[in-house]
């Protein structure tokens, strides 16, 4: 090194030093800095190293806080391990979160006073592999430079197979292999034809569903599912020019049981059915697809001939929400493929979240209630048919969200397809739609019709950093209906603090961590995950938290919120 290079090098080194590890590093913030006083409901948000060393002052009255570290990073980033400790803190366990324990909530949430529903464990492993296969096998078949139809003109879809409107009794063959290359043909008989649906039953199905059931499904599709979905997500394509979507009840779905022991696939949609049999300027061929807007539904099997037994009553109860769920997938994929000329399908976490929004929208349509009304138990119990509609259409969402609330750190709204992921994503999308101030049919229409996917699509719809909104949402998860907070931290549509205690869950199931002086709590935060350490301020009237990641300062992706709760 030349001599004249020495001094700059020394200057660069100056200021470098060893780091003090452990809680002591943050203590001096309460001696040398002006303490922060928050009013009840007030929030301070920090990022990176600033997650530690914020000196909070009680201000003369007993004060309680919750610290919400949120791992705001892309979903592919690894988990972030942090250690949280505090000085001057007291553990608190009173209201609004009386129980830090976390027994698993039931698999079928129902409102108080209604009979329990049979628990259903959805086979999300199959669903996850299906969505991943779509992105892996079908996205490469998209030709991004070509247009399928003029964007924004829903009446001009390309017909990849022209078929006449079927009639009851017609037979048709469908490949259920979920593959562009393999075949597993099943014969279906048209059981009912409505204005917007063709209800088909596999001729090899076990006896169970009746003509009246098929009519009910077709008519409900016309009067409930299709109007709600089209209004909020857009018109599906009509590549087979029959003007309808095919609802295929087939034992092939029942045969999927066994992927996870005890789990059920209630139905599915596969984007390969929307690809042409021969290549077009827009898409390469997928010969194994059925070239039709269709989804596959679980059928009744009271005797368990195919697999686990499913009663007719169970299928009657479960089918309509599932059709609504799968119809969003169908609309989303068909419009990306043939209308919006997107280069990719939606990411699974957001795609599933939107399908759970579809279920919620069906609840509103069926009950006559509306989003934004902060629905609690009394509002539902006082509205004819609302309780039944809740149990049918919202039970799944409340089940999934309860699962998320039980493990908000290791679960994530951007995680792999799992019940907690779905619950969190649905809840976030509802929060975001409400916070945006835009009508649902405008907000979700834009989101479903994005040409990008995942966080990028979400950011374009929000017009804001989606991770910042997710951080605010984590505050709302705790604060809504428990602490008087700004609108950005509220969930305007549902009063979860009232509904969960009045449901088969019996309590608000958010997992909180009572933080006492001397405790070191370790959290493993998935991208999108959050924790809820909760504490009061002890006799010193001041408290400070210390947060470390890997023995050092937390990275910028750790976005924390301090909320005064009492």
């Amino acid at each position, binding site marked *: *090194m030349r*001599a004249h290079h*020495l*001094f700059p090098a*020394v*200057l660069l*080194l*100056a*200021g*470098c*030093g*060893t*780091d*003090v590890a*452990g*809680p*002591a*590093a*943050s*203590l*001096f*913030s*309460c*001696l*040398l*800095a*002006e303490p922060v006083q928050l009013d009840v409901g007030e929030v301070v948000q*920090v990022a*990176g*190293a*600033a*997650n*530690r*060393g*914020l000196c909070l002052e009680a201000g003369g009255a007993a004060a309680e806080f919750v610290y919400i570290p949120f791992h705001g990073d892309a979903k592919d980033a690894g988990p972030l391990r942090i250690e949280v400790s505090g*000085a*001057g803190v007291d553990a608190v366990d009173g209201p609004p979160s009386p129980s830090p324990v976390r027994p698993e909530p039931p698999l079928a949430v129902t409102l108080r006073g209604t009979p329990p529903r049979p628990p259903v464990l959805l086979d999300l492993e199959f669903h996850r592999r299906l969505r991943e296969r779509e992105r892996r096998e079908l996205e490469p078949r998209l030709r991004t430079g070509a247009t399928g139809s003029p964007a924004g003109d829903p009446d001009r879809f390309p017909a990849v197979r022209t078929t006449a409107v079927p009639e009851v009794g017609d037979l048709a063959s469908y490949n259920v292999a979920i593959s562009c290359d393999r075949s597993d043909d099943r014969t279906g008989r048209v059981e009912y034809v409505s204005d917007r649906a063709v209800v088909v039953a596999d001729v090899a199905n076990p006896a169970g569903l009746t003509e009246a059931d098929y009519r009910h499904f077709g008519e409900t599709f016309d009067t409930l599912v299709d109007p709600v979905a089209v209004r909020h997500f857009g018109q599906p394509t009509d590549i087979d020019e029959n003007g309808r979507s095919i609802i295929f009840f087939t034992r092939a779905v029942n045969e999927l049981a066994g992927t996870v022991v005890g789990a059920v696939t209630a139905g599915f949609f596969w984007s390969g059915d929307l690809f042409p049999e021969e290549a077009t300027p827009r898409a390469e061929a997928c010969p194994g697809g059925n070239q039709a807007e269709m989804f596959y539904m679980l059928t009744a099997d009271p005797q368990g001939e195919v697999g686990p037994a499913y009663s007719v009553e169970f299928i009657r109860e479960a089918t309509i929400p599932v059709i609504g769920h799968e119809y969003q997938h169908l609309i989303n994929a068909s419009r990306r493929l043939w209308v919006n000329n997107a280069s990719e399908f939606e990411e699974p976490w957001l795609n599933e979240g939107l399908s759970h929004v579809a279920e919620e929208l069906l609840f509103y349509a069926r009950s006559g209630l509306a989003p934004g009304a902060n629905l609690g138990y009394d509002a539902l119990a006082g509205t004819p048919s609302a309780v039944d509609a809740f149990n049918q259409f919202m039970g799944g969402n409340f089940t999934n969200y309860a699962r998320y609330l039980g493990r908000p750190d290791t679960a994530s709204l951007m995680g792999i397809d799992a019940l907690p992921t779905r619950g969190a994503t649905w809840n976030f999308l509802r929060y975001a739609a409400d916070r945006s101030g835009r009508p649902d049919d405008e907000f979700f229409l834009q989101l479903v019709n994005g040409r990008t996917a995942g966080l990028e699509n979400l950011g374009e719809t929000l017009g804001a950093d989606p991770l910042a909104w997710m951080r605010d949402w984590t505050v709302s998860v705790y604060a809504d209906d428990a602490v008087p907070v700004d609108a950005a931290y509220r969930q305007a549509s549902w009063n979860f603090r009232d509904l969960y205690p009045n449901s088969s869950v019996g309590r608000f199931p958010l997992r909180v961590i009572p933080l006492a*002086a*001397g405790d070191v709590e370790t959290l493993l935060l998935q991208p999108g995950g959050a924790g809820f350490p909760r504490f009061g301020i*002890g*006799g*010193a009237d*001041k*408290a*400070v938290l*210390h947060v470390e990641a890997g023995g050092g*300062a937390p990275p910028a992706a750790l976005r924390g919120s301090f909320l005064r709760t009492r």
Partner: protein
Amino acid sequence: MRGARASRAGLVAAALLAGVLPVAAQEECAATGSAGVALSGAALRSDLAGGDAAEGIELGVEGRLAGGGFTLSAGLQHATFDGAAARPLSGRLRITRPVARLLGVTFCAAGLMGGASVAAGEDEAWTVAGGLAVVGARQVPTGGFVLVPYVGVRGLGARSTGNILGQDFAATGAALGVEAGVGLARERIAGALRFSADGLDPGLGPMPYPSLALRLVAGWRL
């Protein structure tokens, strides 16, 4: 050539162990049998754990006594940070000796020692710090004044103990620091403007060597 490299390597080694004297180095190193007193005022910045910093001011007194080739100087400072109740008291002790002269620049070696204490209510903390420094300074006569620009580096170690918010703690750290400034003297009047940056961890608390300091000194040479 090899000898030149070796001397440069020695200089590098000395520099890495060194720090800057807080008053004009050549004045101290060269002056024998002299003494002085001064008042100091400084703007401080002390880093905190969260990446934020406490900012404040410091007032102090300094004294210097030289003899036998050594200069002993000591200072006592009282700091006030914006919005904070605690007002740290810190002291510094330094002994220096010139060790080399090269191209008109005098190099001095120094031993540094300091301490600080802070208390507010039931919270209290103490810090001791020490290290080695080297400074290079050059005397530049200008009119009736003597200007002494200087710069140097120091290596510091520190340990803090105490009890804050009911929590006992003890923490240790080490860091490099740098100080640069200019001394000014005319007859019996002396002054200096000093800037220093030290990297001791914010978890060590109030320091005789804060994260950043801009210090103005004015006094008499006896």
